[in-house]
């Protein structure tokens, strides 16, 4: 029988009694790897509670993070020998608390030396027993404070993402590095620097209120969205941790809607992520090539995730949400609700893009609106909009502009112009897979051109 608590595994690989050694244990590669995976899994589950508990005790997030990491190291050292304890959460909490108390004691001694009034140790001690039950009652506020700290606007975008993944999702530095395709040392340095910035800034460890809350929440949502997109645009064949970022972001989104349930945009972002992720299984073919939204097998869309996305969207709407994420989620919801491509409500999508354009002036949004208008009113109307965008500086190197243009020209039967547009798109496309797709479409346009007019009747004009 497989051992659940790890005791039997540990017994089979226990180091000689006189000198238990991790190095010796590591020679049993598979078993140790298995135990390490178990430890990391337990760690990810327990880590938010540890971190919030330590932050509350120490009122210092960077220090709490250090001690939480030390606790993980202690588990990685001890558990391969002793087996995973029956209550791993309690074990980790006890070790973490002991370290925090040691730290407070040292700090107090130091403070007394300098004749500064230190916090009363007895009072600290007394506060300890409450800690866990208080956390169990409501981890929410504490967690929110932590997330606000990790995503503080003082930090760079990359640092925020790294800290969030580490402190909220419990990812290791190595995992974060692999997910973002950067060297581990880079991530380690980002984290160290970010923690130093936080320590030196003397930020109050508190939940922002009022207008500041909205501003700070926007910063948090942006980090989550960034992490999601990093995973969403990852290509197949790369490290599995990249697509995994989508799940980490989704989890953060769910956490946010649980601990900040009154924030419409948080529900909106969650809805957007759930609905986009619901198409994960349908987005590529067996060879890993992308499948366009309109060509996807909708039976492969994850209905559980769509239901969750729709629920989040309706909560966002109930809360009066009509911001950046809510509108985007509403657009994706139009697709999610269409059982067949031809049932898509393009008029509604075009309207939502117009709302979005009113909120954020962006040529990319205009381009998307043009696509929706073309679907609702015909390729001619869309093309007129796209042609107005060709001189936008932001879109000069954006391959989707000529791609959309090519598509509309093709549908209008202007095959030669379509081929030129797809070729321009191939030249601009960032990754090989998209280049290939654009070249294929250019070739198709070329073929349609040579067999014209016979091919035109087979190209329905929508």
């Amino acid at each position: 029988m497989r051992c659940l608590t790890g005791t039997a595994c540990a017994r089979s690989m226990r180091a000689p009694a006189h000198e238990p050694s991790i190095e010796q244990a590591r020679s049993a590669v598979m078993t140790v790897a298995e135990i390490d995976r178990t430890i990391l899994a337990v760690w990810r589950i327990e880590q938010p509670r540890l971190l919030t508990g330590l932050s509350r005790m120490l009122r210092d997030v960077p220090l709490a993070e250090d001690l939480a990491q030390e606790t993980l190291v202690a588990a990685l050292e001890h558990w391969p020998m002793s087996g995973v304890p029956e209550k791993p959460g309690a074990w980790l909490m006890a070790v973490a608390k002991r370290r925090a108390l040691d730290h407070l004691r040292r700090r107090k001694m130091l403070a007394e030396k300098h004749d500064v009034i230190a916090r009363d140790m007895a009072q600290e001690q007394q506060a300890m027993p409450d800690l866990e039950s208080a956390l169990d009652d409501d981890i929410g506020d504490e967690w929110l404070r932590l997330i606000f700290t990790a995503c503080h606007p003082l930090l760079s975008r990359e640092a925020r993402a790294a800290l969030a993944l580490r402190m909220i999702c419990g990812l290791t530095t190595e995992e974060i590095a692999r997910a973002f395709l950067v060297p581990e040392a880079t991530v380690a340095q980002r984290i160290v620097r970010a923690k130093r910035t936080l320590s030196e800034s003397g930020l109050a460890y508190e939940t922002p209120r009022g207008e500041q809350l909205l501003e700070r929440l926007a910063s948090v949502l942006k980090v989550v969205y960034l992490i999601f997109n990093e995973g969403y645009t990852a290509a197949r064949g790369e490290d599995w941790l990249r697509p995994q970022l989508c799940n980490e972001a989704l989890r953060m989104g769910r956490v946010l809607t649980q601990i900040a349930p009154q924030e419409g945009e948080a529900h909106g972002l969650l809805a957007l992520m759930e609905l986009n992720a619901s198409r994960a299984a349908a987005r590529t073919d067996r060879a890993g090539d992308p499948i366009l939204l309109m060509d996807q097998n909708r039976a492969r869309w994850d209905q559980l995730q769509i239901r969750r996305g729709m629920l989040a969207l309706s909560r966002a709407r109930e809360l009066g949400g009509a911001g950046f994420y809510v509108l985007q989620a509403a657009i994706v919801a139009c697709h999610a609700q269409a059982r067949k491509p031809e049932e898509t409500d393009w008029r509604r999508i075009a309207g939502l893009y117009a709302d979005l354009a009113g909120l954020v002036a962006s040529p990319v949004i205009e381009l998307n609106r043009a696509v929706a208008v073309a679907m609702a009113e015909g390729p001619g109307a869309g093309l007129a909009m796209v042609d107005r965008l060709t001189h936008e500086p932001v879109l000069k190197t954006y391959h989707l502009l000529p791609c959309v243009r090519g598509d509309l020209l093709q549908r209008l039967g202007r095959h030669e112009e379509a081929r030129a547009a797809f070729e321009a798109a191939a030249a601009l496309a960032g990754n090989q897979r998209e280049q290939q797709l654009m070249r294929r479409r250019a070739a198709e346009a070329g073929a349609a051109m040579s067999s014209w007019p016979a091919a035109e009747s087979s190209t329905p004009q929508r």
Partner: protein
Amino acid sequence: MRFMSIVTSSQPPAPPTPQLLEAVHKLADREIKAGRMLDSGGLMPVSTGAQVRIADGKVSVIDGPFVESKEMIGGYAIFELRDKEEAVALAVEFMQLHKEHMPGWEGTCEVRAYAMPHWDGVCEVDARARA
């Protein structure tokens, strides 16, 4: 990865102790807040259910209880997790609560991964994804 944890027991159905209920609720609350648990539910005893079977080429309906059933499903939970290790760790924690708060109860928590068609998450060429 999505997992379903299914709790089965061969013992006659007994209501959980209040302590167990409280502990399990606390765990579920934590898992919902952590964004890992998507759904969960308990099932009524088999005496209230039925089975529709195919045997010898015939479909038949049998009302519960089913004398020959050994293990009966009592409840389930659906999780979205990193890996099987997380699913197992959560199942161990869940079962520890049973051991502690409902002495004498015996049963199994089975952890099963959802079958997913090649989940790879490649970007479709979709302008919307980047808007």
